[in-house]
């Protein structure tokens, strides 16, 4: 049997920005204060009355070619056969090179355990046949989770029928969290870039 390849699709058209996924994650994974494995990025656009908020649930992409696993010197971060990128708590030495290498800022030092953690697609739940806590809790069912290698799974059908996007595709890590209808302003990390064509300044050295 072919390997499974777990992935996630987040449909931003359905997201109402309720933070339920972040809360479920905190509770399920016992994520300490000050750090987050999953969070909701919120961006406001426009001037009243023509204003709107845009949301982007953020988490580890459990990348296909995960730079964190490639750069981990002890193989504490490793890729499971089903595609989930896991961290072995007993092996991690806390060198933090993986945090420095990940383009998505989704890894953190657990201040209680002094090791590095992140989202593992709730691998303990997945192993037990359940879906991750955020997927289960999302009230609008904006998050779909499943095996991309199974053409009959819901996620394969959603991926086949919709235009999707990933964060920073140029980083060549092959992110496995796909977004439908995510706004550029939420996906971009460089804020100045958005104001780029408003007022040219002296230091805009673009040639």
């Amino acid at each position, binding site marked *: 049997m072919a390997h499974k390849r777990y992935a996630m699709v987040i449909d931003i058209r359905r997201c109402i920005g309720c933070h339920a996924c972040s809360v479920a994650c905190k509770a399920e994974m016992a994520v300490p204060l000050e750090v987050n494995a999953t969070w909701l990025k919120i*961006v406001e656009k426009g001037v009243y009355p023509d204003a709107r908020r845009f949301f982007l649930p953020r988490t580890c992409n459990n990348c296909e070619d995960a730079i964190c696993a490639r750069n981990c010197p002890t193989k504490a971060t490793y890729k499971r056969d089903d595609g989930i990128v896991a961290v072995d708590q007993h092996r991690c030495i806390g060198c933090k090179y993986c945090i420095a290498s990940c383009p998505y800022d989704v890894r953190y030092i657990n201040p209680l355990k002094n090791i590095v953690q992140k989202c593992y697609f709730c691998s303990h739940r997945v192993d037990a046949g359940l879906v991750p806590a955020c997927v289960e809790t999302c009230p609008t069912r904006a998050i779909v989770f499943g095996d991309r290698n199974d053409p009959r799974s819901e996620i394969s059908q959603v991926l086949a029928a919709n235009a999707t996007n990933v964060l920073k595709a140029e980083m060549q890590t092959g992110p496995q969290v796909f977004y439908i209808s995510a706004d550029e*302003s939420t996906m*971009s990390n460089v804020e100045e870039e958005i104001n780029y064509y408003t007022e040219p300044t002296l230091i805009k050295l673009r040639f």
Partner: protein
Amino acid sequence: MEHGDINVVYSVEHQLPLVMYIGQYFFFTGLSAGSFVISVIATLLGRKEFKPIGKITAVLAPALLIIAPINLIADLEQPLRFWHLFLYYNWTSPITYGSFLLTAYPVMGIIYAVMVYTNRQTPAKILGILGIPLAVSVHGYTGFILALAKARSLWNTAAMPTIFLVSAMVSGIGLVVIIAAIRWKWFDKDATEEQRAGDKKLILQLAQFMAYTLMLDLFLIFSDILVLLTAHSDAYEAGLLILTGNFAPLFVGVELILGALIPMILVLGPTRKSMTAVVVASILVNIGVYAMRYVMVIGGQTVPLS
């Protein structure tokens, strides 16, 4: 509607993973590699007046390289698990190369120092020649640590390992000049006038060599920044951060002006015959290289990722 009305209301940024321990470690390995190369050059040339410098640097190199990894272990969240690096190595990680290089290099350095001190010329020369690639890689790999962390655009450039090597040479020569000058001033009294004049000439020559290496360093930094400013948005952001942003005082002020331009003027300008000027220049150069490590390590992580 103006295009600029976009506000990030909420997002999460995690703490900086690598702190100044790492920069300090880069600084010390750089000093070590630089002084080793000087020592080997002195041994290979084999001239009598180079002997003292060859000896000083032969001790400096392993001594500094024993201090350097202490920074690394102190930076670990789980320092007692450092042995995992050797047991569970991962050949795709530059840190794994580093752990083995960092073990082999001081051992070789100590044997080399013993050879130099017991005046066994041939083994010292052979070890020196074998040791140069090791010294270059022990410092060069630190450039790869930064360059291969692809998330950070300030680091992820092909120039990074070379910039690290060249700045290591600069700071290493600077340190050798300082120590040789101290020896010349206070511990060299029983030498003849002629010998002292020869030693002074040698120190001044070393300082000039340092100034020329600095020029190469400045050229590399210039080309790196120029490419950053014309590359993709993250790189552009990183370039602005060190040129005009929060890190500008350190980068432009300390690294470029205080740590490169002023020393170059001191060493090559009208004061080039003055021992004081040369020593001041060497101290400034080391301050500049330390600032460079800070700007690279901390500044590189300051551009937001999410």
